[in-house]
C-alpha cells in the first residue's frame, strides 16, 4: 500500500462491492449453462432434421420434394416466438404433450428444444442445399455410374462435399440459433435471457446487467464463428 493515499484501494474494493455485489444473488453461470444446453441439443437436432429435409428436397421422389419445400417455406416464415409459444400452449396445454417428463421445468426445456429444432432445421436445410449446389453434377454421375444407390450417392459422395462447403453458412445458422435460445424465456425456461429479465426487475442496474448478458453471448458466439470459419477453410474440397 502506498503512503499518501490511504484507503484508496479499499475504497475501490468497496465501490466494486456495491456495484457487483448483487450478482452473487443470481446464478449467472447456471443460466448460461442452460443456454448452452439449449443451443447444443437444438444444434444436433436441427442438423439431423435439416439434413433429412435437404435430402428430401434434392431427392427423386416428387412427393418428398414437395413436402420438403413446403416445410421449409412455411416454417422459416413463422416467427420463432410463435413456434415456441405453440409448443407450450398448443402441444403442451391443449394437446397434453409432455415429452416424457412430469416436471414442468423439464417439459418446457424439451418443448423449447423441439421448437428451436423445428425452426432452425429449415435454415440448416437451405444452407446444406446451397452446399449441395457447389458439388459438380459429374460427382453424382460418376457415383451412379459405379452402381451406388441414390442414398449412397448422397451419403458417400455428395453430402460429405456439401457439408465441407456449408461450414461457414452453417456457422451463421449456429450463431443465430445460440442467440435465438433467448426466445425460450417466453415459456419460462431458466436460461440467460429469463435471468436478465428477472435481474432487471429486481435491481437498478439496467445497463450493467444488459452488458453482462450481452458479453456472455459474445463469449459464446464469437469463438464459434471464428473457429468454424477456420474449420471451413481447413476442410474445403480442392478441385
Amino acid at each position: 500500500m502506498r503512503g499518501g493515499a490511504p484507503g484508496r484501494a479499499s475504497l475501490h474494493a468497496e465501490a466494486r462491492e456495491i456495484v457487483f455485489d448483487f450478482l452473487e444473488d443470481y446464478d449467472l453461470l447456471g443460466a448460461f449453462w442452460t443456454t448452452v444446453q439449449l443451443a447444443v441439443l437444438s444444434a444436433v437436432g436441427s442438423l439431423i432434421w435439416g439434413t433429412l429435409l435437404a435430402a428430401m428436397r434434392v431427392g427423386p421422389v416428387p412427393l418428398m420434394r414437395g413436402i420438403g419445400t413446403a416445410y421449409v417455406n412455411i416454417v422459416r416464415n413463422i416467427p420463432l416466438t410463435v413456434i415456441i409459444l405453440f409448443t407450450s400452449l398448443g402441444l403442451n396445454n391443449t394437446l397434453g404433450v409432455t415429452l416424457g417428463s412430469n416436471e414442468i421445468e423439464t417439459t418446457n426445456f424439451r418443448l423449447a428444444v423441439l421448437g428451436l429444432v423445428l425452426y432452425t432445421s429449415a435454415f440448416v436445410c437451405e444452407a446444406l442445399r446451397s452446399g449441395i449446389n457447389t458439388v459438380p453434377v459429374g460427382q453424382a454421375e460418376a457415383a451412379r455410374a459405379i452402381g451406388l444407390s441414390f442414398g449412397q450417392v448422397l451419403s458417400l459422395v455428395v453430402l460429405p462435399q456439401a457439408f465441407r462447403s456449408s461450414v461457414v453458412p452453417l456457422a451463421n445458422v449456429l450463431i443465430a440459433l445460440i442467440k435465438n435460445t433467448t426466445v425460450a424465456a417466453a415459456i419460462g425456461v431458466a436460461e440467460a435471457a429469463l435471468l436478465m429479465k428477472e435481474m432487471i426487475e429486481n435491481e437498478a442496474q439496467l445497463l450493467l446487467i444488459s452488458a453482462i448478458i450481452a458479453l456472455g453471448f459474445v463469449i459464446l458466439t464469437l469463438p464459434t464463428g471464428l473457429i468454424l470459419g477456420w474449420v471451413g477453410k481447413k476442410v474445403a474440397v480442392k478441385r
Partner: protein
Amino acid sequence: MTEVSVAKEDVAATGDLVVLKSVNKHFGALHVLQDIDLTIARGEVVVVIGPSGSGKSTLCRTINRLETIDSGTITIDGKPLPEEGKALARLRADVGMVFQSFNLFAHKTVLENVTLGQIKVRKADKSKAEEKARALLDRVGVAAQADKYPAQLSGGQQQRVAIARALAMDPKVMLFDEPTSALDPEMINEVLEVMQQLARDGMTMIVVTHEMGFARSAANRVVFMADGRIVEEAVPDQFFSNPRSDRAKDFLSKILHH
C-alpha cells in the same frame, strides 16, 4: 505393370452384349437421337465419331441410363435397362464409365476412389479391395499417387485413375465419353495407351472420341454419327480410306487435312 483380369468370366460366352433398337431421344425441340440401331458384340471395340452436337455423347450416356430415352429399347447382356432404382444400380456396376471431366471423387484419395465401389457395391472387404485397387493403379501407371487427392494429380493421371475406378467393378463393358478431350496434348497418349492395352486384353469398349489415331489402331468398327443419326458404320481402314457417305467425307476432309 502387373496383370489384372478384367471380367474374364465372359470370355467364353459370345454374342451381342449391348443392343440398341430404334432409340429416340429429344432435348426439348432438338431430336438428338433419331432411330438409333446399334449392336456391340462381346469383346468388340467400337469407336463413335462425328461432329459436335451429333449426339454421340448422349448415345454413350443412354447406355447406362445417365440419360433416359423417349422410345426404343436398350439391352445389356440380354437384359433391358431397368427403371431408376436398385436393379439399375446393379446394372450400372457392370457398365464402366469414363467421363470427359474425369469426375474423380474430390474428397477421397486416389485409393479410396478405386475402393469405394468395390466396398459399397460389390461388398468386398477393405483389404481385398485395396489390394485390387493398388494392382489396378499399378496397371494404369499411377500406383505412386495412391494416397494423394485428385486435385494434386495431372489431368492424364486423373483420367487413368478414373479408368482404374471403372475397372475395379469388373465391368462387362466400358463406356468412354470423350476421355481425352479435356487433356493437355502431351497427356493424351498416356491415356490412349492404357485404353489400347484394355482393347488388346479383350474388353468390350464403346469409345466416343476425336482421336482418329486411336480409332484406326484399336477399333474393330467405326460408327459415324451426324445430326442424331448413325450415318455410316465400317471397319476403320475402310471408313478412313474410303468413306461411303458425303457427310463422312466432308467430316474427314475437315479433320484429316490441315
